[in-house]
């Protein structure tokens, strides 16, 4: 096995034992990154110089033995909607081409403090709006398992770079499924924390009440290690929760004997892709054999999740994206007067999906429609959350497929936006309820594409997700499979 194919916890042991330096590791990783990048296209910006400088710093820490963490010296990818001081942050949009934030997102600060190394900013759907990374202004990222398929979205680049071993882990963001769906399509682990578990300061906002940042990794242990670093209260984010962070790496190894697993009937429709259905059901059986109890539950309002989400998210987005007006930073297209400058700048700067959602959101919030749409969606939100609250009185975790199908081909869902939106049908209610959820691989399709298992937990109970996932993962070998980087 090549160095860059290892997991964080494996390679960290090598670094700690001084079998190799972070600079050596980073160089090797960057070399591989560049070698496969023409095929995969995971990165908008590769930060080679920064990475090597950070690696040198990490080596100093390791040498002196001070401030060494499990992430010290480890090369990681960062989704391009997280602000990185002095490094281009584009949100995969023309609107922010060349924009260099004067500050770091809190999660980036925490990774830096832990001694991590940033190899680059990863590609995504523009302003996080999409499920295939096809709406990026800059490039299309390919799924390492089949280069003619999408990696999923919006954290497509973050998923593909981990899957293709271009980085040992990455940070993505998830508003309706944008970590979990690409993780499922690329055969890796992705976790969306409880709303408020991880600081949103420096996360360029899409939908403020739904967005969360989370790790995307090769296995569950790596995910726990990253969660340990990024989680916790941030005074700069008024919506971040002041709740203690357990040691997820310790919690992950606890037994799941007697763990109660809920299977919601609404997530297993008759029409569900049979390969997905089979893989997930097998995984549930596996969990049973590991000592878990399975109960059938119902989340009766989940059929309304998509509709509620497509009112709430675009509404908040229409407001969050209004600041891109060409006045202070980013793209500016001049006009005869200010209104012309605004409209020309925004017409040129935003892609069609972003425009579509801004218009939807503006409409839903407008006078005369607010009550019928936004307010109504907020009420539906409460009902969906209540479904989860009730279910979690009976069970500890809920298990579902992550997505209805494995990776699809480029252009397959771009003609009709609604078909794209349906990708999120199993992931979206989780964001609405604010609960945490994780996706990990549980099978491979006949066409050699990964199938994902979603585990949903109680608020601030990421520990239960991680231990359930770990127990399952360690009893299978899906996490050891590597993509072919071929096209078919």
């Amino acid at each position: 096995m090549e160095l860059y194919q290892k997991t964080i916890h494996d390679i960290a042991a090598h670094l700690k034992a001084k079998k190799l330096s972070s600079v050596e590791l980073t160089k090797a990783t960057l070399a591989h990154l560049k070698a496969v990048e023409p095929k995969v296209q995971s990165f908008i910006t590769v930060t080679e110089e920064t990475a090597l400088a950070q690696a040198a710093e990490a080596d100093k820490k390791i040498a002196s033995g001070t401030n060494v963490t499990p992430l010290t010296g480890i090369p990681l990818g960062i989704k391009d909607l997280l602000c990185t001081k002095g490094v281009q942050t584009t949100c995969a949009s023309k609107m922010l081409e060349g924009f260099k934030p004067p500050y770091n997102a809190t999660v980036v600060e925490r990774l830096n403090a832990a001694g991590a190394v940033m190899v680059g900013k990863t590609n995504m759907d523009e302003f996080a709006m999409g499920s295939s990374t096809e709406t990026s202004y800059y490039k299309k990222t390919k799924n390492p398992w089949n280069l003619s398929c999408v990696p999923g979205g919006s954290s497509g680049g973050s998923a593909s770079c981990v899957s293709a071993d271009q980085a040992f882990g990455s940070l993505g963001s998830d508003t309706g499924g944008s970590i979990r769906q690409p993780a499922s399509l690329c055969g890796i682990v992705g976790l969306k924390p409880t709303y408020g578990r991880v600081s949103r300061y420096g996360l360029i906002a899409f939908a403020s009440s739904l967005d969360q940042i989370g790790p995307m990794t090769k296995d569950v242990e790596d995910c726990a290690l990253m969660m340990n670093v990024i989680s916790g209260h941030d005074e700069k984010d008024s919506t971040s929760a002041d709740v203690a962070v357990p040691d997820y790496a310790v919690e992950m190894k606890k037994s799941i004997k007697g763990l109660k697993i809920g299977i919601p009937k609404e997530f297993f429709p008759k029409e569900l892709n049979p390969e997905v259905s089979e893989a997930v059901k097998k995984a549930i059986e596996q969990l049973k054999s590991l000592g878990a109890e399975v109960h059938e539950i119902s989340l009766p309002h989940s059929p309304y999740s998509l509709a509620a989400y497509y009112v709430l998210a675009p509404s908040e987005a229409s407001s969050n994206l209004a600041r891109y007006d060409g006045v202070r930073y980013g793209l500016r297209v001049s006009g005869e007067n200010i209104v012309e400058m605004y409209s020309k700048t925004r017409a040129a700067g935003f892609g069609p999906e972003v425009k579509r959602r801004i218009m939807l959101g503006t409409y839903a919030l407008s006078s005369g429609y607010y009550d019928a749409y936004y307010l109504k969606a907020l009420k539906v939100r409460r009902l969906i959350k209540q479904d989860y609250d009730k279910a979690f009185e009976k069970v500890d975790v809920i298990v579902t497929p992550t997505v209805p199908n494995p990776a699809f081909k480029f252009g397959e869902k771009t003609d009709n936006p609604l078909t794209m939106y349906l990708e999120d049908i199993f992931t979206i209610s989780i964001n609405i309820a604010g609960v945490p959820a994780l996706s990990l691989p549980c099978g491979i399709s006949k066409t050699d594409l990964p199938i994902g298992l979603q585990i949903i937990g109680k608020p601030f109970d990421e520990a239960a997700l991680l231990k359930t996932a770990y127990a399952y993962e360690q009893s299978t070998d899906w996490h050891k499979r590597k993509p072919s980087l071929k096209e078919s």
Partner: protein
Amino acid sequence: MAFEDYEPIIGLEVHCELKTATKLFCGCPTTFGNEANTQVCPVCLGLPGTLPVMNGKAVEFAVKIGHALNCTIASYSKMDRKNYYYPDLPKAYQVSQYDKPLNYGGHLDIVTKEGTKRIGVTRAHLEEDAGKLVHAGGKSGRLDSSDYSLADYNRGGIPLVEIVSEPDIRSSEEAHAYLTALKSILLYIAVSDCNMEEGSLRCDANVSIRKKGTEKFGTRTEIKNMNSFKFVKQAIEYEIKRQAVVLDKGERVVQESRLWDVTENKTKSMRSKEEAHDYRYFPEPDLVPIILDPAYVQKLKVELPELPSAKRARFVTEFGLTPYDAGVLTSEQELGQWFEAGAKFTKNPKGFANWMMGDMAAQMKEQEKELTDLKFDQKKLAELVELVDAGTINSKQAKEVFLELFNEGASPVEVVKSKGMAQVSDPKAIEDAVDKVLAENPAVVADYKGGKQGVIGFLVGKVMQASQGKANPKMVNEMIKKKLDS
């Protein structure tokens, strides 16, 4: 239909900048007047990815305003986004309060010639200020004649409380009285500098008129850009007349925003670009609701200093001042405090107050001195009051002594002693002086006896002259009358 047949309906919206050390959602300072864009950070610039953090002091100041205006303080309130595009608004939304304001249902009492009137305060809510635009390159500094505009975000994010009155105001005088009373209250509770020139106090007026005796409100216009209370009064007066003329012609008043033009002394329609007034308000998702502990709210109420109206009432009952006197002395908090401290040293607080409002105020104005610049303290002024009340000096002499007191800080008792100014009040000496003057002015005496009572002033003057102003004028007057009437 004449102007007098209409009744004006006026409501005032006052924006008050809170003098917290830092902005509403970030740690930038709120100082006025520094170089452009030197008091900014990623948060108040609305850079991508930034988030607001509520300034607790601003909430405290806002609650104090609510208490001072007799409002109900909401135990649950929230911030909302008011969305619109303008270059002075970095996020393209202002974080304000829409349907659940912090304070509501209050009132403010004003005093005019007609007496006391209660003006309702609909609400007083918390919001952030926008930056400032400077329109440059043209002749007038106005948007429509400029080549380009410069944006300064130093002011952006400063906490504001917007105080909205009920449309209870019925004249420009009442409007002026409302603003004066409101400013006084805000200064007393020390939440704002209330400086209209610096923009820490701003006022917009909503004006409409209706036929006297009818109930339905007319169409209202919003008047902006009035940066002094005087201009507010003038602008309202102009607008009332303008609307009356429009209605008299049989035309309709257009609902619009109008600017007060100080050079032409008229309100002018703001030739507005199509300004969509749909702000698409929705609850601010980046902030948690404001839930106040009743004990905290009560503590702030109890800690509030004595407000102007209460102080005025107390000055009347405790010190026997007239309501007018009390009003003058409480117009500034420091003045009232100075008076009250001084009243301890005198048996005649009314007399003390008269000196403050008369000679002292005049000298302070002429010499441009503040209370803190005075060379004397209340004790010395009280001495002067005592000297007059005891009859030691007369009022004309007292004015002389006052000038020494004001200019040199000299003790009145010392001045009278060293200048030998003690009034002559010996009845024999007075009688002698009077006899002399009456003897020297037979014609005048004849006039008096003939019915011309007014000439007594001349005779008193003569006696005062002869005594180098030292004679007790009251006694002189009485003596002359006694001599002539007998």
